[in-house]
């Protein structure tokens, strides 16, 4: 039999949503100082009742309106070097990820790409990252 001939057919397994349409957000505040060699800026945990789950998520920042497919969101975050005001303001790439860290917890992490030897950076603009995510059962194999 051909799967694409059927709308619903119990001969084939289907994705099962365990949780659906959940919202989580986190804020990176203006004035926050970090060193790029230690790039994690913020992380928050959300307890959900996931069972052996996969994750699909999309997110957007407060600066850009389109929601992005997938688990990571990149945007430009204006930063400066506090010890060198003459360097001016420039952009870094913001990275977000939503991960399942235990059977009952998801973690949203916000940071920048790793580097080493860079000076301290100060974020110039507050950004709130909002994710909407669903989880689905991962077949027991």
């Amino acid at each position, binding site marked *: 039999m051909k799967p694409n001939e059927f709308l619903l057919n119990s001969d084939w*397994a289907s994705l099962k949503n365990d949780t659906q349409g959940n919202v989580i957000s986190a804020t990176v505040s203006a004035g926050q100082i970090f060193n790029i060699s230690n790039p994690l800026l913020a992380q928050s945990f959300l307890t959900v009742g996931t069972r052996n789950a996969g994750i699909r998520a999309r997110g957007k920042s407060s600066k850009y309106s389109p929601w992005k497919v997938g688990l990571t969101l990149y945007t430009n975050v204006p930063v400066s070097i506090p010890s060198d005001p003459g360097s001016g303001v420039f*952009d870094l790439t913001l990275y977000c990820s939503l991960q399942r860290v235990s059977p009952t917890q998801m973690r949203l992490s916000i940071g920048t790409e790793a580097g080493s030897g860079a000076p301290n950076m100060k974020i110039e603009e507050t950004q709130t990252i909002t994710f909407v995510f669903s989880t689905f059962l991962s077949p027991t194999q």
Partner: protein
Amino acid sequence: MPRIIQNARDFLFSSDFPNDKIIKGDSGSFTVGAYNSAFPEIAHPFTFAPLYILKWSTNPNFDNSFDEIGVSTLDNIQLNGQTDTSKLYLFANNNNGSAVTFYWRVLYFMPPDVMASALPTTKDFEDFNFNTDYNYPKIYLEDRANSSDASIIHGLGYYPQVEVWYMRTDGKLIHLVDNELAFPFKPSADITTSTLTLENNSTSVAYWYYRIYADET
């Protein structure tokens, strides 16, 4: 009879829309030494490049689990996948100082432009194939977009759940799991309450597969 779109997401099942049909599942594990990479190749039985969802973990029970993660991440360990007409290709990096075992699971789906037979998968998975304890994503729009950039109007009025895969010109099919606004050399997909926009961003995209579900993410 026309499909009833209003409130489709409020139903667990709706016979107005197709649902996902998993045509095969597979799993395995492999170990990558410290500061090393590995590229396992896993054969699949299909004559086409299957759509896929890949999950991985460092724990055999999948207590922690991750989607595919691209190159530019904070994580020291990464796993990506690709398919073509014969294999699933895994790309694993371990930038830790000790060996890491990757446990992976993959689900395969048939592309919408393929009309082939597939063996039932009922016995491979959960005890129940359909169970009203859970929601079943309802495929509202599913197609192949035969251009390197595409714009698909869905008009649902909310941000729908979306899955996107792109076929590179070298015949490798890749599940889009991350995006970059600023970095130009990576395909991207933007969602609004009315439109899905697919952009190749100067990469070698031959065509896309997309699924827009009548469900919110």
